[in-house]
């Protein structure tokens, strides 16, 4: 596996995201309630740039005609066809066997990161990809 720097630690606020390119891959780096998650920017359904979709909550399973809004900030809705994914797990809300392609992300020692605002302090976030 090879480490690729993608963001400064603290650069992505809670509820925020950053789209990065690593080689030919496009990734979405999300801060989900303080946890950093990285996913391929390709929907498992039809290949759409899923990471550009709207972030919101959704209606939770309920009784008939009952509306319970929840998972606020955890739901990424694909811009094509509207499939909802829970960013904490990458799972499609309808069918948990369908998942966003997750990429390992880990913090590391701070080093210069081209293209990032230099005023950011702290460490660096890396994704791990096969060489």
């Amino acid at each position, binding site marked *: 596996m090879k480490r690729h720097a993608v963001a400064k630690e603290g650069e992505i606020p809670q509820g925020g995201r950053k789209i990065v390119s690593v080689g030919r891959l496009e990734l979405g780096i999300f801060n989900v309630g303080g946890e950093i998650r990285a996913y391929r920017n390709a929907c498992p359904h039809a290949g759409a740039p899923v990471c550009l979709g709207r972030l919101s909550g*959704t209606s939770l399973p*309920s009784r*008939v005609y009952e*509306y319970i809004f929840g998972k606020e900030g955890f739901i990424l809705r*694909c811009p094509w066809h*509207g499939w*909802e994914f829970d960013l904490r797990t990458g799972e*499609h809300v*309808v*069918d948990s066997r369908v998942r966003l392609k997750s990429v390992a992300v880990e913090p590391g020692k701070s080093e210069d990161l081209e293209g990032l605002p230099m005023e950011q302090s702290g460490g660096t976030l890396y994704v791990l990809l096969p060489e």
Partner: protein
Amino acid sequence: MSGRHAAPDPMPLIDADVHNAFADARTELRPFLPRLWQEFADRHGIAVPPAGYVSPVGVQREDARPPSGGIAGSDPDHMIKDHLDRYGVDYAVLTGSHILGVSTHFDPDWGSALAAAYNMNLAVRWLDRSPRFRGSIIINHSDPDAAVREIERCAADRRFVQVLMGAGSNRLFGQRFYHPIYEAASAHGLPVAIHPGTEGAGTADTPTPAGRPTRYFEWHNIVPINAMAHVNSLVCEGVFEKFPGLKFVAIECGIAWLPHLMWRMDKNYKGLRSQVPWLKRLPSEYIREHVRVTTQPTEEPANPKHLLQIFEMIGAPQMILFSSDYPHWDFDSPGIALPGVPADWKERILWLNAAELYGLSPVTSGR
């Protein structure tokens, strides 16, 4: 090919759509109407709003006219001989004639009075005549309170095996307006069925949302659109989540549209489920479990194998019930229906599905 003279099939047979008719509506219903409505019937007659489409064939089969000279289906004894005995029908589920329009009267109280009178007359004139006749509780769906009272009144008589309402309406059947009907039906273990014919009649909306067909031919072609809309609505409104024991029967509405509707609903559910969070499964799963359809008028593709492929796509042999539509012009003879259908499916379709749905055991003697 003469299915009329085929020997009775040894396999049991339940016919899910047989049309009994009035020999004389006023004579038969008047004794069961409250005094005020008797007076009304004496002055204005008994009729339900017509859909307005006339067939060049006529609706009743010419050859099924009883010796008495009344209209086809109006003589219980003749029906037993001409249909039940001829084809070895163990049970005929009676679906009435000139009565489903009770749901489209401008005056819902007149409609409900007629529905009740019909059911009372059915019990004495038909169900008392032979245990092979099974009844449908006709209701006026435009007045759910009255419909519930009628279900409650009839349900104790187990010869009534389902609730039946005309498919023509001015709102979709999944909507909460109708839920009291489903609550009452499922409390008594009765399926709720719809039958076409009242689309565009009285208070019902046009037979298609795009407008009124010009002629009977065109109208008859497009009847299934209405069933599709109701089935879609029932699933989306969560009727089968709210009433998990309920079964819904779309009589005479075709079959081949099911794969399309199921696929489209499932695809949309994957992106739009947040509007219907009460659905816990794919829409097609509710359809397979809760919806039943009847065979007649069997779709007849140029290559009969294509219909079997449609059955496979539906993937639910328990969904399909045999029906003949006796004594109507587009009757399907049990002797020649379902060509090429595999034996296990045929058994389900010809009797097992209906036996399970309606709680009927095959009659083993007397035929």
